[in-house]
């Protein structure tokens, strides 16, 4: 818009801009602080840091690959978190893709109710979900392990996966599928040849979102972890309980970098699609 709206220019716009910048700084302050303190040369969380160094990153590195690798279990936890996140993303895909397709393409009785139910995991308190799953598993006499934690993460990831796929599906013309049908493709073939390639972006961003949500998920893991299934957030939490040193911040900063990387990736995926609309 070229014209400057009445009253929106000048002082008011400047004030809003200034306020926004200040508020964003506050919102980002914990993240910034984590990154800042990870470079401290000191032994404590003294602010401002007495000096800058990479010593805490070196310590994390030694826990990951050096002398302390065996005792710290950092590498194991990281690998476990990656496995859980990948498994949760795949589970969400397997459950979310057909359901999204059904919701977008078909009208059927009870669709409204199912739509509501699929939104339930977003509002459901995670503490309760974690505890209830723990109770159910222990009641059934089974052992905790990888499966319950993956399922728990998949439950809360499902709505995010479905949002992405549904938005992508709504952007595809149902006529494309019909065209494939009249050209001799079976329904399944038409889906895989025509629809799937067109919603790849939505699927990828959905999976990345679920991956990052699962990778960061603390509450569910807090109730469902075991000695063998020991995800990274639990490892970090325990480290914080035993010694609250800047090493935690170095590990946390690395997680922040990973998080931001994935968010930018999703933003690019979704942003490109948006630009095409």
């Amino acid at each position: 818009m070229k014209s400057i709206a009445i009253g929106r220019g000048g002082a008011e716009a400047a004030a809003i801009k200034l306020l926004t910048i200040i508020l964003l700084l506050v919102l980002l302050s914990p993240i910034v602080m984590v990154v800042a303190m990870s470079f401290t040369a000191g032994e404590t969380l003294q602010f401002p840091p007495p000096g800058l160094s990479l010593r805490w990153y070196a310590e994390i590195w030694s826990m990951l690959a050096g002398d302390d690798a065996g005792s710290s279990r950092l590498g194991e936890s990281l690998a476990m978190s990656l496995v859980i996140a990948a498994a949760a993303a795949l589970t969400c895909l397997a459950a979310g893709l057909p359901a999204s397709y059904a919701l977008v393409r078909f009208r059927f009785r009870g669709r409204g109710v199912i739509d509501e139910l699929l939104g339930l995991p977003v509002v459901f308190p995670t503490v309760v979900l974690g505890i209830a799953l723990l109770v159910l598993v222990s009641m059934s006499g089974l052992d905790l392990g990888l499966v319950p934690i993956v399922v728990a993460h998949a439950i809360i990831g499902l709505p995010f996966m479905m949002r992405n796929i549904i938005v992508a599906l709504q952007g595809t013309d149902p006529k494309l599928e019909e065209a494939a049908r009249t050209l001799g493709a079976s329904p399944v073939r038409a889906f895989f040849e025509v629809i799937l390639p067109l919603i790849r972006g939505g699927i990828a961003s959905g999976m990345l979102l679920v991956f990052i949500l699962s990778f960061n998920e603390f509450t569910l893991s807090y109730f469902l972890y075991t000695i063998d299934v020991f995800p990274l957030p639990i490892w970090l939490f325990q480290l914080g309980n035993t010694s609250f040193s800047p090493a935690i911040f170095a590990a946390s900063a690395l997680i922040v970098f990973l998080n931001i990387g994935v968010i930018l990736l999703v933003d690019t995926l979704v942003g490109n699609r948006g630009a095409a609309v």
Partner: protein
Amino acid sequence: MQMPPPVLELRNVSRIFAPSGFRAVDGIDLQVAPGEIVSILGPSGCGKTTTLRMIAGLDNPTGGDVRIANESVLQKPPHLRKVGLVFQSLAIFPHMSVRQNVAFGLRMQRASTAVIEDKVDRILELVQLPPAQFASRQPEQLSGGQLQRVALARTLVTEPALVLFDEPMASLDRRLRDYMAVELRAIQKKLGLAAVYVTHDQETASAMSDRIAIMDSGRIVQVGRPEDVYERPDSRFVAEFLGDANFLKPQAVGGRNGKRRSLQLSGVPIEADDAGQQSNGEPFIMFRPEHVAIRAKQDKGAGLTGVLTGCQFSGGYYRWRVQLTDGQFVVGRTTADPARGEANGGKVWLSINPEHVRLLRQ
């Protein structure tokens, strides 16, 4: 000699939408002979697209039978019907190149790579998209007319028994549409295709088809050659839908002589063909504007008199309006200026070609 069986036969086909009970298609019968294009022409919402979708198998009739090559196809899903469909939105696969789009159907038939290559090249030549230039392009690099050709090629390459067109040219501008219609007709003739062409545009329908089926509110109200339907509509709806028409009330309707009826219009005896409608409604006569001659002087055969009340040049011909002595208006179309030298309001004499007058009932 025996007539070959029709490629397509619709027998009393209906489609009633639950739960409203809306009769989108209400018991229609239609046959398409080999090598014939039949247009289904009607206003939007008349059920023509639903009919097409039922032929393709994308929708199921609630009654009647759809037969292709003398065999009921109701139990067959779309991909087994061997029916090609060119969509209104064209539905070009956006993630595939021109070649991949056209090859899609052949791939589904599990044709060999060499066969696919060869057939795609040939069909692209046929629709005037030289493969060397166009085959590797992506859909977003093509114009509307070129996309049209891709959609056509993609459908034709599978050699379907019957091709369906769902207003594929609606989005093109007039000139391109006329051009494509001529070209499509030529390709259809060359390949001897049987086709159903759905449209709401009567000019395209007339240009494209061997026969036109006019549809209204789920029913086919008249079928025939384009000229016949235009000249001899069976109802006011058909007459109006196919072009400009005069509808006048005669003073008296006299006796019948075969199909001919003699009647009185504005005090002058004229003759008309009785459309034979099974209706007790009020009779009226219908004729096209191009079938009225206008004279500034009395002439033999020109019995109707009136006053010229308006005339305008509309590119290639004059459109004028005359009020008859009984107060009714006649609209006409001539290449010569009827007002030549005389001002509006002048007295004129009209003669209506009796061959082209129809007697209809409300």
